[in-house]
């Protein structure tokens, strides 16, 4: 058995999208996987070990691609990994190429390109079961003989052929079995030779022939840049002109030549039924992409997805909340006499852990649906149906599911953008996802509408306002996406070419695996950042906490209370920590501490910034304290108004307290703080603002901290503008 330290052969797994490549990867490596990103890009890197007898190898799963033209980010990663050009990666020792047996010639195109790299190869002839159902039979042995490499029939979803695949890999590596390469017409060989000379003269680098052909065939190849060949473009253009003169189209010759050769090579190896069996996919598609029925089914499915993330997750989230409270209650006695440690453990650490774990139900449910939608093949149809709606502002059809899920919670929504291949559309989707009105905003709406809109304007208007609040973010997101696409992203538009894979029955095992992968990744990668942010906020709200603050509050409280009752009952009431009076005092002390905390002071200092939106310093503190998680506002307001932190948005006391607040001084002294325009401004602020540490952390992990900072800054800026506009316009319309 090879020890972990000896270098085992590195094998790259390549294949077209939808060939069952990832399933095969999971079957080969099982649970021994490592997941990360390639350095500098957001393309996922998965690797794992597999063995055949006592031969062991490391397998890396590369993104599914159709060619090595390096036109997309995914393709570039595949090319760079296969060439060993990516910093921190070593060149693979062999390639495992997965092809779909139902469409052999189209799938072998990629294999034929990979063959040029001169690495040992094995072909996994996957989906032989689906091929048989369609009456297609492939002579695997004949194919292996003609290609020169092992061809192993597999059914990845059932694990069939997987042990044989491992054996074949071991043989291919030890015997250096390479696939036969494509023969090129004379003018192409001449052009490649000329290019080789020019390249050596200009850079001193002797590029391998396969790479020279890529420079010749691909418009905008990245290779000259990699080797520092600045003047490549005019040289290549001249050589291409010579090809054209010989009636060879430099951008088309590669595909024509390879497909032509593959067709000849496959002659007599693939038996097809005389009359193509009308595939099930065709009749299902007629329904699912239908103008009316297709859209109705789509709407119903999306409603189901949304409802389940929104509703089904709730009991699990409540369970996590109550478990957290129970743990708190159980361990708090341990820290009697150590209030700072108790608060750190209970309000800092436990809240921090809770605020990470609470997202797991929503992520698990959303990714269960995404796995089902993708594995059945429906996701591509959904993208097809929605593309027109989203394309004009730089998004594409695949942005729909992430954006819809963000209405429940932006954290799974941002994670779901993994399904978008186009990096620009993906980044745009990530950047506008936090503007969708997630479920954590609901308590703020309910509190404000319940306290200020409903009493004055009745339930109908209240309902309408609640409904309208859910579209504020969307109304802002559309122009934002459009302008980012138009003015900020200079990336060229990616073509939206999407294969509609055949419909397949998903495997429970694969779905569960995908859920587990995502949840584990969220906990490991985003969890730490979310946890850190929660602890930081706890510290800002807790410190400096001088004892003098509590003393001053207590003295004043006792003086006020003594005026109302005799000192005997007062002393008795204060001696009992469960009495109303003691609770009142404790709440007041908590309130005073928050006012004196670093965050409270910051709130007072920053209040002038929010004055144009009509916010007083208390609302400002509430806003600041809600940046890690917006739902915290309710508890913070409770503490600030001396009502304690255990309130919810339906609390009558909190509503009454808010309604009773008046400005203590200044031009508005004596008038209510919360007018309808202020309440609306608060709601608009919360509707837009990126007050969610978890979302910021996930955006950073899915793109980088620069984009996360940008998202945070622009969304917060928009929230401020929105709140100020709402207040100013509202004050002029409604009066105060």
């Amino acid at each position, binding site marked *: 058995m090879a020890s972990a330290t000896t270098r085992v052969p590195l094998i790259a797994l390549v294949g077209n999208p939808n060939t069952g490549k990832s399933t095969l990867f999971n079957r080969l490596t099982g649970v021994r996987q490592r997941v990360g990103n390639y350095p500098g890009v957001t393309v996922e890197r998965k690797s794992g070990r597999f063995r055949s007898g006592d031969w062991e190898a490391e397998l890396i799963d590369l993104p599914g691609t159709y060619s090595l033209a390096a036109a997309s980010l995914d393709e570039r990663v595949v090319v760079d990994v296969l060439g060993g050009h990516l910093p921190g990666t070593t060149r693979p020792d062999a390639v495992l190429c997965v092809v779909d047996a*139902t469409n052999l010639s189209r799938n072998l195109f990629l294999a034929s390109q990979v063959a040029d790299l001169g690495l040992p190869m094995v072909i996994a002839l996957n989906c032989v079961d689906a091929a048989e159902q369609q009456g297609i039979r492939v002579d695997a042995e004949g194919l292996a003989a003609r290609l020169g490499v092992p061809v192993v029939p597999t059914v990845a979803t059932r694990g069939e052929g997987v042990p044989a695949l491992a054996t074949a890999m071991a043989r291919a590596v030890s015997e250096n079995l390479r696939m036969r390469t494509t023969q090129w017409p004379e003018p192409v060989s001449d052009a490649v030779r000329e290019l080789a000379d020019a390249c050596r003269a200009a850079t001193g680098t002797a590029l391998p022939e396969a790479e020279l052909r890529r420079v010749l065939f691909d418009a905008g190849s990245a290779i000259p840049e990699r080797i520092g060949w600045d003047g490549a473009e005019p040289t290549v253009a001249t050589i291409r002109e010579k090809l054209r003169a010989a009636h060879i189209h430099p951008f088309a010759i590669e595909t024509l030549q390879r497909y032509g050769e593959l067709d000849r090579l496959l002659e007599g190896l693939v038996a097809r039924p005389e009359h193509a069996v009308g595939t099930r996919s065709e009749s299902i598609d007629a329904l699912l992409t239908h103008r009316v029925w297709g859209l109705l089914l789509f709407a119903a499915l999306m409603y189901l997805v949304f409802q389940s993330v929104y509703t089904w997750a709730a009991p699990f989230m409540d369970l996590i909340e109550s478990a957290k409270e129970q743990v708190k209650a159980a361990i708090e006695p341990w820290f009697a006499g150590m209030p700072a440690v108790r608060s750190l453990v209970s309000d800092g650490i436990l809240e921090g852990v809770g605020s990470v774990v609470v997202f797991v139900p929503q992520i698990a449910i959303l990714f269960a649906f995404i796995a089902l939608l993708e594995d059945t093949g429906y996701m591509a149809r959904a993208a*097809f149906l929605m593309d027109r709606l989203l394309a004009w502002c730089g998004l594409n059809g695949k942005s729909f599911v992430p954006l819809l899920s963000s209405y429940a919670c932006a954290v799974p929504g941002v994670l779901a953008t993994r399904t978008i291949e186009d990096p620009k559309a993906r980044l745009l989707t990530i950047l506008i996802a936090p503007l969708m009105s997630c479920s954590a905003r609901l308590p703020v709406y309910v509190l404000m509408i319940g306290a200020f809109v409903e009493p004055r304007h009745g339930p109908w208007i209240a309902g309408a306002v609640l409904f309208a609040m859910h579209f504020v973010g969307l109304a802002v997101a559309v122009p934002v996406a459009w302008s980012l696409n138009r003015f900020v992203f200079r990336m060229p538009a990616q073509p939206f070419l999407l294969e509609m894979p055949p419909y397949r029955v998903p495997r429970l095992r694969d779905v569960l695996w995908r859920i587990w992968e995502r949840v584990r990744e969220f906990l490991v990668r985003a969890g730490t950042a979310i946890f850190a942010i929660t602890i930081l906020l706890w510290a800002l709200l807790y410190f400096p906490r001088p004892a003098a603050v509590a003393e001053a509050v207590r003295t004043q409280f006792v003086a006020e209370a003594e005026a109302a009752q005799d000192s005997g009952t007062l002393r008795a009431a204060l001696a009992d920590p469960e009495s109303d009076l003691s609770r009142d005092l404790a709440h007041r002390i908590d309130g005073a501490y928050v006012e004196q905390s670093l965050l409270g002071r910051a709130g007072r200092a920053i209040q002038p910034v929010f004055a144009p939106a009509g916010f007083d310093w208390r609302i400002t503190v509430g806003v600041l304290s809600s940046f890690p998680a917006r739902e915290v506002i309710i508890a913070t307001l409770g503490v600030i108004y001396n009502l304690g932190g255990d309130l919810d948005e339906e609390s009558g006391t909190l509503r009454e307290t808010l309604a009773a607040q008046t400005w203590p001084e200044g031009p508005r002294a004596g008038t209510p703080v919360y007018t309808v325009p202020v309440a609306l401004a608060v709601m608009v602020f919360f509707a837009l603002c990126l007050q969610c540490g978890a979302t910021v952390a996930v955006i950073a992990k899915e793109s980088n901290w620069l984009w996360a900072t940008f998202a945070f800054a622009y969304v917060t800026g928009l929230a401020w503008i929105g709140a100020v506009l709402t207040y100013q316009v509202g004050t002029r319309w409604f009066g105060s």
Partner: protein
Amino acid sequence: MRRLSELALGASGRVLEIQVSGASGQRLLAMGLLPGSAFRVVAVAPMGDPLTVESMGRRISLRRSDAAGVEVELD
């Protein structure tokens, strides 16, 4: 000669040429939509765009703007 972008649901024919100047052309070739291959428009999205073309057992969805570079002849 017609362009793929002009076709309606159910149209079928043969690909004549693919203009490969844009990124979409080369990708279409790589995906196997080749000159000479037979195709059929099997789906059109509700808002008229994109469309899905079937050719040689592969179904490819593409926007009409990307389909403009594909010259075809109808059956």
